[in-house]
């Protein structure tokens, strides 16, 4: 087998999506839950990203981070520092971060106007 990795074969050109300036909102309930999670330390940031996978092809990725090596745009929403990777900005513009308070299937939810469909658990969209 000739992998060609040490020679001249160049990678298949990635389909780089257009970077958009993301606007997003956080519901009152989600703000309450984020305040509990952050405490008084507002040096941390909420990373809102997208990974491949899930039943519908894309999965949301929510993390509280100090920093990230991803190329991100930093926005402040209702006092929270939010990081959105540029690579997935086209999928996240206009989203609302919500919190659903119920015993089964509860937790943070993303309401995404860009999603054509989403799977039953709400973690995945296309």
């Amino acid at each position: 087998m000739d992998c060609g990795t040490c020679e001249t074969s160049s990678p298949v050109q990635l389909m780089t999506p257009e970077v958009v300036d993301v606007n997003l909102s956080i519901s009152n309930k989600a703000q309450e839950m984020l305040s509990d999670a952050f405490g008084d330390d507002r040096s941390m940031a909420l990373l809102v990203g997208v990974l491949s996978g899930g039943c519908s092809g894309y999965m949301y990725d929510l993390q509280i981070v100090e920093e990230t090596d991803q190329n991100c745009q930093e926005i402040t929403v209702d006092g929270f520092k939010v990081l959105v990777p540029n690579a997935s900005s086209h999928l996240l513009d206009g989203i609302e971060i919500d919190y659903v308070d119920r015993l089964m299937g509860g937790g943070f939810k993303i309401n995404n106007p860009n999603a054509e469909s989403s799977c039953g658990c709400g973690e995945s969209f296309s």
Partner: protein
Amino acid sequence: MPLVAYPDAALTIWQGKDALKFIDGLSTNKMVDLEKGHLIQTVFTSSQAKIIDFVTVFHMGEVLAVQCHQSKLHNLLNHVLPRILSQDVSITDVTERNQFAIEYGVTNEHIGTFVSLSNVTYGHTESNMNIVIASKENSFEYTGTANEFDSWRIENLVPWNNHEITTKNHPLAAGLGQFVHPAKGCYIGQEILARMVSRGRQGKNLVRCKNTEVDDKLITTRGEIYSLGIVRPNQ
């Protein structure tokens, strides 16, 4: 054992720390436990659970070599490339540097592994076949024909690309059920396949049948007396 040409094969190299997890998230088999020196076969499926391509992933250590098919490569890349986003994955097409063959009717003692001998890689698969990949500098001596290979496939109920493995079929109908992991996480098409399995309603099945017993249009690989076909249980 007979060696036949595999003209529709393609080879891509997937690099980056997220490559294995990336394939795992988009295909039917469980990839994340794959170790260096091992291979695994998996199916990329659409949101309707139809086959995009059936691939063999060789874990080479630093990189993954993914043997796919030239006739499906364009659609496969269109499916995966927009989903890389910020993950560390890059894909290189090295098909032109390699040639491909199938050694069939073998008894593989080490299924799921591969060896490289004199720059020729032999991937030991579940179907009593070796996928043989060599750089263009090597030369293969074919000892079997495509017709003989088809006869062997009919006898052993082995599905093949562009016969049973087409974009019109889902993996269960095409005889690729052993490559659909029953308990891995979500991937595109998983809900449909899981529902088919749990309800026992997968619709069509790959069968070996007498030519006189099925409608011509259901035959996917035609033999002299017996053929392979994808049929509903009452057909």
